[in-house]
C-alpha cells in the first residue's frame, strides 16, 4: 500500500511541476511576476518529487505538525500478546506479531581449539539461513538487575548458613571443631556464597544474551500470533539442532529486556551506569 502511494505521490508531484511549467509558458508575455512564481512552484514540486522517494512517510504527518513535533505514530510502539510470548503491532490493515527466541550459548573461544572455532563460526553462518523469511539475530549486553541477583545470592547464603547451623547443633558441637565431612562440605558452601556475595557487590553487573527475532503478519491478532509462534518454533528447532542447545521462546519480562531501554538498564542500577559514564567523560 505504502509502495503504491509512493509512486502516486511521485507522479502527482511531477505532474504538478509540469502544469506549472506549461502555465508559466502560457503567461510569460502577460505577467512576468506570475511567470516567475509559477516556475518557482514548478521547481519546488520537482524537488519534492525527488524527496518523495525516501520521505513519503512524512508527507501526511507534516500537515499535522505541532510545535516542532512530527508525530509519525501516536500509539504505543507495541502491544503485548495476551499469551505473553509475543508482541503485536498494527500496520494498516494487518497485525504484525513478533516473537523472540532465546539462544543460550555459553561456550567461550578460550576453551576451544582452532578447528572448534572454525566449526562454531561455520555453524553461526548456517544459523543465519535456517528459515526462508527475514529474521534477526542479536547479541545483547545489558545491565543486570544487581539488587535482584544479590537477593538471590543472599537467600542461598542464608539457606546454607541455616543448614550449617542445624548440622552443627545436631552433632552437638556448637562453636567446636567440625568432624564430619558433611559439616565440612556445608561450611565450604557457606564460604562460597559469602565470597560470591562479596564479589558480585564489587563486580560490574553486566550480562550477555543472544536471541533471534521473527515476525508474521495476520488479519487478526490470534492469526498473527499463531503464525509468529509457528515461525519462532521452527527457528528455535533449527538453532537448537545446529548448536545442540535448547532454544526457547521468550515470555513477558524477558521480551521487555530486549525491546525496552529501561529494562535493559534497570532503575536499580541507574546510578552505577550514570556514574561510570560520567567518570569516563570527566577523564
Amino acid at each position, binding site marked *: 500500500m505504502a509502495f503504491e502511494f509512493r509512486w502516486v505521490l511521485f507522479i502527482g508531484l511531477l505532474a504538478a511541476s*509540469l502544469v506549472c511549467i506549461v502555465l508559466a509558458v502560457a503567461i510569460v508575455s502577460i505577467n512576468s511576476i506570475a511567470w516567475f512564481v509559477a516556475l518557482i512552484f514548478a521547481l519546488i514540486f520537482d524537488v519534492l518529487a*525527488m524527496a518523495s522517494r525516501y520521505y513519503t512517510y512524512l508527507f501526511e504527518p507534516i500537515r499535522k505538525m505541532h510545535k516542532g513535533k512530527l508525530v509519525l505514530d501516536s500509539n504505543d510502539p507495541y502491544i503485548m500478546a495476551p499469551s505473553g510470548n509475543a508482541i503485536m503491532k498494527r500496520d494498516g490493515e494487518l497485525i*504484525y506479531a513478533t516473537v523472540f527466541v532465546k539462544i543460550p550459548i555459553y561456550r567461550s*573461544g578460550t576453551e576451544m581449539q582452532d578447528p572448534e572455532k572454525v566449526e562454531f563460526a561455520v555453524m553461526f553462518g548456517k544459523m543465519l539461513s535456517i528459515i526462508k523469511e527475514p529474521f534477526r539475530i542479536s547479541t545483547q*549486553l545489558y545491565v543486570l538487575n544487581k539488587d535482584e541477583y544479590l537477593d538471590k545470592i543472599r537467600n542461598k547464603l542464608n539457606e546454607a548458613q541455616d543448614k550449617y547451623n542445624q548440622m552443627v547443633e545436631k552433632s552437638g558441637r556448637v562453636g567446636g571443631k567440625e568432624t564430619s565431612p558433611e559439616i565440612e562440605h556445608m561450611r565450604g558452601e557457606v564460604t562460597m556464597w559469602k565470597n560470591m556475595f562479596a564479589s558480585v557487590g564489587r563486580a560490574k553487573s553486566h550480562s550477555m544474551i543472544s536471541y533471534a527475532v521473527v515476525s508474521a503478519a495476520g488479519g487478526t491478532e490470534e492469526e498473527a500470533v499463531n503464525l509468529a509462534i509457528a515461525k519462532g518454533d521452527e527457528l528455535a528447532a533449527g538453532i537448537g539442532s545446529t548448536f545442540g542447545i535448547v532454544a526457547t521462546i521468550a515470555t513477558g519480562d524477558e521480551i521487555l529486556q530486549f525491546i525496552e531501554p529501561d529494562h535493559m538498564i534497570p532503575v536499580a542500577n541507574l546510578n552505577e551506569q550514570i556514574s561510570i559514564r560520567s567518570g569516563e567523560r570527566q577523564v
Partner: protein
Amino acid sequence: MVDEETILYLSSTAMLALLILFTASNNGLLGLLIIVFSLLAIGMILCINYVDFLIFPAFTKLFRIKLVPANGYTISDGQEAVVKVSGGVYYATGYLTGNIYGYVFTSEVPEESDKDFSGAVDRWERTAMNIDFPFKFNVMTMPEDVQVYRDELDGQRGYVEFQMSREAASTKPNDMTMQEFQRKLQILQEKMDRVSQGERPLNVIMYIESTAVGVSEKEALDTLTLQLTELQTLFNAFDLSIFRVTGREVHFLHEFDYKIPTEAELRKTFQTQK
C-alpha cells in the same frame, strides 16, 4: 552501481529542472534568478539521492523538528538517536553500521578463510569483554532463492568471460587487466562452489546499537555519542569501517525492535551485503 529506480527518479526530476532552466533563458533578471534556482534544485536533487543522511538531519536541526515514532519515544532533532523518558530518566539509543563478517562472506582468498573464521571468534570475545555499557549487535538476514542467485552468478561469469575474450583478442592485451578478470572469475567460481556445497546465499544487514542514560536529554545524547565512539574504536579491530547512522534510517532501525520487515521493505530502505 545505479539501480533502475534511481535512474528513473534522477532522470525525470533532473529533466524537469533542466526544462525550467531552458524556459527561463532570455527573460532578464527574473530569468537569471530562475536559472540560479534551477541549478540549486538540480544540486538539491543530487544531494537528496546521494547524501540525504546529511540533508535531512540538517533540515530538522535547523527547524528544531523532533519526530515521534511512537507514544513515549522521540527522535532527536539531529536525527541521531531515539530518546525515551521513563521515570524522569532519559534513555537515548543510537546506531552504528557494522559488517563484521564481510571478509568471510566475500572471501576472495579461500585458503585464509579458516584463519579468519577462528580469528573472528577470538576478536568478538575480546571486543565484548572490553565493553561496560549496554549494546546490541544485530544481524538481519534474508535468505535468497538459490536458483536466482546461481543464475545471477552465471550471468556475471558470462559477462567477465566476454570481457576477457575481448581483451585477449585486442592487439595488445594488458596483463594487469587479464589478471583482474582472472581474479573476478576465481571469486565467482568460489561463490558458485559454495552454493553447490549446499550453502544458502544470504542478504545481510548488520548494525550495532547502544543505549545511554542521563538525567537530561543532552546528557543522555552526549553519553551515547561517547559510547558509540568507543564501540566504533573497539569494533575497528575487525578491520572494517563502521559509521554512525543518522537520518531516516534511525527511525527504521528503531522499528526493527518491534517488527521484522518483509524482504521488499528491507530492500527498499537498506542496501544489503551478499
